[in-house]
């Protein structure tokens, strides 16, 4: 029974990782922009969730508001800063987005302060399901898993079956060719970047009730997000999903079976994957 629950823990953690990393996968994979500020967008989402839920009194109202605000922020950043860097070396993107981390972290400190804040779980999801006589499972965690699956499905449908998705994929594989065929790639880039920011912020908002909001929370998720994208293969959402689940299993069972090595288990997995598949599990070679 304990092992079944640990498998549930693994899947649930993996899906949460996918939710957090999907925005990065989109921006990194489709636009080729190394976005170190991804963790900051996650943090911004969590704080938006916290602030808006306080103002409106409900996380359900805060969610759509927060997504709109985050997407607007994404559009603004893409237009003013990111779009200047597409033709530059990756190093410029790293520098700029690292600067954004510092700016957002300081803004957070000035606007909201450095205290830890809790976000209430919406009351209809606040219950726990009893699994054994000692252990229950919070319904909200199952809800997060369901949201992640729905989101993965939605992204797949949009990218693979719609005309917009086809355009985005065209831009990803050959921007010059796509442009010469009449696609407005500036618009597509702006759209993808905004969607990536909104996804990260959405993940932050959804995760806020379980993780709380606190200084430095964005930096904690940033590294694991890059691990997900690298293992999955750059440019592959399917890869990101598989990688996130794989990491969920390795991390959970690493903690239970080899507690001494729990800290390195995930990175060991990344090293092994890269050894045999240098471009990731589903990466284009």
């Amino acid at each position: 029974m304990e092992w079944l629950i640990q498998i549930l823990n693994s899947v649930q953690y993996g899906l949460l990782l996918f939710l957090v990393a999907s925005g990065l996968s989109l921006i990194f994979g489709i636009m080729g922009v190394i976005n170190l500020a991804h963790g900051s967008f996650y943090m911004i989402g969590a704080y938006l969730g916290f602030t808006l839920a306080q103002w409106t009194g409900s996380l359900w109202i805060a969610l759509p508001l927060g997504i709109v605000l985050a997407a607007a922020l994404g559009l603004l950043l893409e237009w003013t800063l990111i779009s200047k860097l597409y033709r530059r070396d990756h190093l410029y993107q790293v520098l700029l987005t690292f600067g954004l981390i510092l700016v957002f972290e300081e803004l957070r400190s000035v606007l909201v302060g450095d205290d830890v804040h809790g976000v209430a779980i919406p009351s209809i999801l606040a219950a726990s399901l009893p699994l054994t006589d000692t252990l229950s499972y919070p319904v909200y965690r199952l809800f997060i898993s369901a949201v992640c699956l729905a989101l993965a499905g939605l992204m797949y449908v949009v990218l693979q079956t719609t005309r917009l998705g086809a355009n985005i994929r065209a831009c990803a594989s050959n921007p010059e060719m796509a442009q010469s065929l009449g696609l407005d790639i500036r618009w597509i880039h702006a759209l993808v970047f905004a969607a990536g920011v909104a996804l990260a912020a959405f993940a932050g908002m959804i995760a806020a009730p379980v993780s709380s909001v606190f200084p430095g929370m964005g930096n904690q998720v940033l590294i694991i997000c890059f691990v997900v994208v690298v293992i999955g293969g750059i440019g592959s959402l399917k890869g990101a999903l598989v990688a996130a689940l794989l990491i969920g299993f390795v991390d959970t069972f690493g903690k239970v079976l080899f507690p001494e090595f729990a800290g390195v288990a995930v990175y060991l997995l990344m090293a092994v994957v890269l050894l045999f598949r240098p471009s990731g599990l589903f990466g284009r070679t």
Partner: protein
Amino acid sequence: MTTRRKFVQGAAALASASAIGALLPTPARAQSAKLRIGMMLPYTGTFAALGTAITQGFNLAVDENAGKLGGRDIEYFTVDDESEPAKATDNANKLVQRDKVDVLVGTVHSGVVMAMVKVARDSGALLVIPNAGANAATGSQCAPNIFRTSFSNWQPAHPMGKVMYDKGHRKVVTLTWKYGAGEESVESFKEAFTKLGGSVVKEMYLPFPNVEFQPFLTEIASLRPDAVFVFFAGGGAVKFTKDYMAAGLKDKIPLYGSGFLTDGTLPAQGASAQGLLTTLHYGDGIDNAKNKQFRFAYAKKFGVQADVYAVQGYDAALLLAGGLTAVKGSFGERSALYSALEKVKVDSPRGPWVMSKAHNPIQDIYLRRVDGNANEVIGVAWKALEDPARGCKMA
């Protein structure tokens, strides 16, 4: 937040003014010259709130002393250490070598403080530590010129072994982050608990600052210990108590912790922390005149309630005031100054305490119960507890 802004700006202005001062030739300093105090604390980053509280506590004590220590006016030199161990040696050297401070005060982060300890040992500068609990600072690395006014990691956790044994718990599980403060706390708890006859059935660790607790909660549920002891702080502490309750364990397997589990985080923890028992060297509602006077003055001056960090900063200044007054503000005879500091009886809001031979407070550790947004003191868990100062040649 504006006060902190202003403070940092003021500190920056002060620091740049001092930098210019350092370029000018300075005559040999007479005793009547200003006392140069170097404050090396985190004013940005995760521990910013702690650094600010320590500074405010320190300032309050100096104000109550007419702005002087040992009869001397004070000149402050401030460095934001960012809780960044990589910059710690440089920062400490800047204050000691360039600004020629008489006293170095800092800091919160244990990794940073160990670099400061090294600088203090190499240069002979007087160091007063107002928070960081690394056992080694007043253990294997102890020195005549290093004093601590807070606690050693060993101290707050140790009495919990007795408390939990007395509650009838015999088989417990421990869980913490795999890093200095966590490991030293669990080690200290285990020492007290097993000495009485209890047993730790499993010690669990997760990498710092990972907060995916679910696999451990599943294990705790299947191991069914009598109780659980944890060390977590800040955001991790909030997530842990919430996850513990959501997993349905709160009412089935009692949770205990070192006081940092519920300090400064109660509004965010809400129901998940109610009723928890923790041990620490400070708490809410300590019933002595000094504490009441201190809390009132602190709230009046800074507009916020004092916390344990403010008390530790306050005590750092009280210690210096006591020691320096005894030697009339003179740094001439080092050994006289150090033995004066050793003899100070600090009239602290946490209750009076004295220095151990290793220069760490011999202090009461309180048992506290969470009630609403307060850690109410319900008794003394261990009277006048002294750190064993393992490896210290002075002890």
